[in-house]
């Protein structure tokens, strides 16, 4: 018996040794990272729930890929376990043999799925290279385990020295050792790294079901180095995260910068960091317009000779978070992006384009546009806005934002202010409102962000108000997610949420006053970041218009190109992101694109005509209210 079961166990053992060898190289590389929190083995208990709930929710957005993974991974693991159990004599009988056969067939089916995905032509978002071998290796491994398992369980003992026995052993040896080898720099890396990443994920808040953990970590401003430009500047579990990439390309497909041909492919970006840490085979799409991947890169990520990432890659990002939201491995692309940006901005002062002007303006005037603070209210000189310093407590503090300085968004603001007046809301504005710091933070200038945020928190502490309302999702996000760790805790409403409340309470009547076909563009910082998908749609649906959706909407919305300082860094691509988004809007044949963010308004209205009209939600709402009252 022992003699007869030994050869397959030897094959498995050999593969295991190889796997341990390759993984120890990876593990060694993860240890380069900082350790921020105690590493508890008990955290491994997080894995099943995080895998089955959070990961599943994302994987399942592509049902075919999800089934493929269930069969390929599940079939392989099950067949392997059952096969080994049978070989060890712990499973016997015809029923067991049939179960093993079915399991093996499932695994083979999964492998076939995986093969078929790349056949006859590989979709551009998927990787090639070693990924082509994966279906074969999995298929052969399943055949090996099936052979071993069925023959052991059904007692159809194979003589290992017969030709068929030797073939089976060779099959096992080749497939399992092959899989073990590609656990290092190849596809199977994701399995172990991904599992460990789920256990010790750097943002545990991601798994509470609300995806609310979007604030960037603060940095120690007294540290010898600000931001990251080498792999060791990341935390160990962040490096683990980058290593868990399965190169499925969902981030690539979601990324607006990649779609527009800007030099950023988030999938490649993650593998750039992983590959700088330890060799990684990358056979996916490059950063558009930049050279191919270098397999063996040094530990330097950016800003120096031999760096693995080009500066334009990190500045092409709009921080729209589509990649993070799409990633089934829960990788934090943006944390990587911001760490590198912080280094480039704070250590090198190398923020490109007009970002330098923006920083100057913020430093000198506390506004992005370089205007005096009181001029923020110039646009409403004839509306006699009550000031907080003259009139508080109030129900609502209206946060004007940078839009107050900008002609287009002044119109949205005026419309919203008129709506507040019609609804008889007790509100006031700040004469001393400073920029919220969102742009500075996302451009890596953490020092400027902290200065502005602390100044605003000090201002707000002087006044009494129930809630803050703003038309700018970036402001809403910054005040709710960035400010609490600095001691600023407020009830903040984006105006769409607030207006929805007013309409529900009957303080505004908008019903059925308009017609035509409209589509709604979800701002990234409202939909994906703040999870407000429904309120704007509920409002639009009351107006009497026909609402049609773009293919990319809600949490899957496609960025306008205006976030993360994109308009100032102004990295060139083949196309402009807003042009792509407007094309998606045109496809709906809507007459109006409704927007709910000053950046989206500016970006989308900047697209050349003919195109649908761009209207801020307040504007069409006001039109409906005024029609109703006339």
């Amino acid at each position, binding site marked *: 018996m022992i003699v007869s079961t030994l050869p397959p166990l030897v094959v498995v053992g050999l593969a295991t040794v190889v796997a341990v060898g390759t993984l120890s190289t990876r593990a060694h590389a993860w240890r380069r990272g900082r350790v921020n929190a105690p590493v508890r083995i008990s955290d491994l208990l997080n894995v099943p729930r995080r895998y089955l709930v959070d990961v599943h929710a994302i994987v399942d957005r592509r049902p075919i890929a999800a089934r493929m993974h269930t069969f390929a991974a599940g079939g392989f693991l099950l067949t392997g376990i059952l096969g080994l159990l049978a070989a060890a004599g712990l499973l016997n009988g015809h029923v067991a043999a049939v179960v093993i056969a079915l399991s093996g067939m499932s695994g083979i089916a999964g492998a076939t799925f995986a093969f078929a995905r790349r056949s006859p032509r590989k979709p551009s978002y998927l990787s090639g290279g070693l990924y082509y071998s994966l279906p074969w290796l999995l298929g052969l491994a399943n055949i090996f385990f099936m052979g071993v398992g069925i023959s052991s369980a059904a007692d159809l003992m194979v003589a290992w020295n017969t030709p068929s026995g030797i073939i089976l052993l060779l099959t096992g040896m080749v497939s399992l050792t092959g899989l073990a080898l590609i656990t290092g720099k190849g596809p199977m890396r994701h399995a172990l790294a991904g599992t460990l990443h789920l256990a010790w994920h750097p943002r545990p808040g991601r798994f509470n079901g609300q995806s609310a953990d979007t604030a960037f970590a603060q940095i120690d401003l007294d540290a010898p180095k600000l931001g990251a430009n080498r792999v060791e500047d990341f935390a160990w579990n962040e490096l683990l995260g980058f290593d868990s990439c399965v190169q499925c390309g969902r981030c690539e497909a979601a990324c607006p910068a990649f779609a527009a041909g800007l030099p950023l492919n988030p999938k490649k970006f993650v593998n750039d960091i992983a590959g700088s840490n330890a060799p990684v085979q990358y056979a996916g799409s490059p950063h558009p317009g930049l050279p191919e991947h270098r397999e063996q890169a040094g530990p330097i990520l950016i800003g120096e000779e031999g760096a693995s990432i080009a500066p334009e890659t990190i500045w092409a990002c709009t921080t729209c978070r589509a990649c993070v939201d799409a990633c089934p491995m829960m990788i934090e692309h943006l944390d990587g992006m911001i760490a590198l940006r912080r280094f480039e901005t704070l250590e090198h002062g190398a923020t490109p384009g007009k970002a330098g002007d923006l920083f100057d303006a913020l430093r000198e005037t506390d506004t992005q546009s370089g205007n005096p603070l009181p001029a923020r209210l*110039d646009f409403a*000189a004839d509306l006699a806005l009550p000031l907080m310093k003259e009139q508080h407590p109030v129900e609502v503090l209206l946060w004007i934002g940078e839009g107050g*300085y*900008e002609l*287009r968004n002044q*119109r949205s603001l005026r419309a919203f202010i008129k709506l507040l007046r019609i609804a008889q809301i007790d509100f006031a504005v700040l004469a001393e409102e400073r920029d919220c710091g969102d742009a500075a933070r996302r451009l890596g200038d953490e020092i400027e962000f902290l200065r502005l945020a602390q100044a605003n928190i000090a201002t707000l502490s002087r006044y009494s108000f129930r809630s803050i309302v703003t038309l700018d999702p970036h402001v809403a996000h910054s005040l709710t997610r960035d400010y609490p760790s600095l001691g600023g805790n407020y009830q903040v409403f984006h105006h769409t949420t607030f207006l929805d409340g007013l309409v529900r309470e009957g303080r505004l009547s908008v019903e059925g006053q308009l017609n035509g076909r409209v589509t709604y563009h979800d701002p990234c910082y409202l939909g994906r970041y703040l999870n407000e998908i429904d309120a704007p749609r509920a409002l639009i649906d009351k107006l009497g218009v026909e609402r049609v959706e773009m293919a990319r909407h809600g949490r899957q919305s496609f960025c306008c190109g205006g976030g993360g300082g994109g308009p100032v860094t102004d990295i060139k691509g083949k196309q402009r992101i807003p042009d792509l988004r407007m094309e998606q809007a045109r496809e709906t044949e809507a007459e109006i694109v409704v927007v709910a963010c000053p950046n989206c308004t500016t970006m989308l209205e900047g697209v050349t005509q003919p195109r649908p009209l761009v209207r801020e939600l307040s504007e069409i709402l006001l039109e409906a209210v005024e029609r109703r009252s006339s």
Partner: protein
Amino acid sequence: MNAHSALLKPLKIKNLVIRNRIMSTSHADRFADGGRPGERLQLYHEEKAKGGIGLTMFGGSSSVAPDSPAALWNGISLESDDIIPHLQQFADRIHKHGSTLMVQMTHMGRRTRWDSANWLVPVAPTPKREHYSRSVSREIEDWDIRRIIKGFGQAARRCKEGGLDGIEVMASAQHLIDQFWSPMINQRTDQYGGSLENRMRFGFEVLEEVRKQVGDDYIVGMRLSGDEMIEGGLTAEDCLDIARRYVGSGMLDFVNVLPGQLNDMINYAKYLPNMITPSAPFLYMASAIKAEIDIPVFHATRITDLATATRAIEEGHVDMVAMTRAHIADPHIVNKMMEGRVDDIRPCVGASFCLSGRGAVCLHNAATGREGSIPHTIPKSLIKRRVVVAGGGPAGLEAARVSAQRGHEVILFEAGEQLGGQINIAAKATWREGLANIARWLEGQVKRSGVNVRMGHKATAADIEALEPDVVVIATGGRPNFDGVEGREHAISTWDILTGSVELAENVLIWDDSGYEPAISCAEFAAKRGAVVELSTYDKYPGEEVSKANLPIFLRETYKHDVVFTPDRTLKRIYLEGNKRIAVLANVFTGEEEERAVDQIVIEQGTLPDVGLYDDLRPRSRNLGEVDIDALIAGRPQDITNNPEARFQLFRVGDAVAGRNIHAAVYDSVRLCKDF
């Protein structure tokens, strides 16, 4: 930042906040109702407030005393307390839109007539003849001075009680206050004449009385000249000195600087420059004064575009830019700018139709001054119709624009290769090029609103019927009228000369029996190209119907090029003799005939309508061409059915009805089409 952000900076004067830097100055809009701001005048100004303007001033030369009658141009009288409730109503109306309202007050001194409302003899510092108003005046006496100063004070009090945001004391264009200043007029030897201090005394006394009545917080400004630009008048230095002294008294909150004076026709044309003048010709005058004083400076004079207005503010030349005539062309300038629709602003082209004695109406915007019946923004129709317009001149373009704004499907046929009709011909005449902007704007609006424009297609009745229209608008224009002249085949039209379709000859006789711009335009055009030109007219002078801001320029330019004028002639016949054309002209009054031997004879009698298409379609239309004139005037839809089997209604607009002008053409169209 925005291209025009400088214009959107609010201006604070004492406690008054003006929301932006764009204003309209007081002018003679001729819309008052018995000396009061009635409905028409209020709606006219309210439209600007609605359109986003920061400050609108009304009541050009509003009177403070009965010997300065505003009735001459249907203006405002501030002479009694009866006006206060009207001012209150008006002010509320403007404030409702977040705008501000001020009025101008004046005594015109000698610059008025003795035979107007009250038949009172005009007063002057020194009684001298004045060309512009042909005044006969008497020397102002001490009791007049007391009376008029009191009149200013009481008028100011009424304005304050009426809720106006401020007042402008008029001291430019040679009204009484600046008649005292001007050594050309004031030759007194008492305390009101001689030194500048003495000449300024009356103005000081007026301001002191005004301040006494309204207090220190109320906004009081003064309109003054930056340079009288006339021999013997006030120089730029004098004007600067005057401004400095009045401002130094602390009694003024702003000055409004304008150029020149209105001593005669040509000075009138310089004071209100037309399209021959480049943009912002006198900004430098205001800028010079702004550099010396520390209160806000306002300025008007041919600032018609936002780029220039922005420059004026951004570079610090002035604090408020008046775009008065630009607002007559389009009262929604500020809103359109704020909405990023600068291209939608109907441009002031400087045609000066608003100065042609018809009040503040615009050559190509028929809604201005008619806000009660014609909306500036055309509301959408509830039903969608198919409207076919034949002809792409101003009438056809306006019909297409308005119909498209109504939400209808519009198809426009133009036989030629260019839209704009006769505007394109008129714009060929030397400095008249600015007229082309009228056609350009209309074309832009028509194309942007989705009108299906079919160029180079002379529509036939069959073409139009094949489209199954609900409404057909015939705007086919007219052709030059040669009627009544024997031997007309030897004559050509002003069109031929201006378009160059006939080569200009050496010796040209132009005979005019229309009185409008074409003949004198053509004379100037031909003379500037070297022809020897005689302009003969049936009228007592050439260009009798031309706006008084344009005629002096036409006369200046034609005189400069030696055009000979022979008025009071009729062209009886033309015959050939050798290689010359002989024109037989007869004196209208004596019948005496005389002959001219010339190379070319141009006849201008306006146009005759081109009615072929109209006649073809008439029997097949539902209304058989009939217009319900009562409904047209009342602003009700046309609903006449004379031929129930027919599908479409048929109308004519513009010169296809009768040869008139651009204003008539666009008014025809908007009045009719807004109710489609």
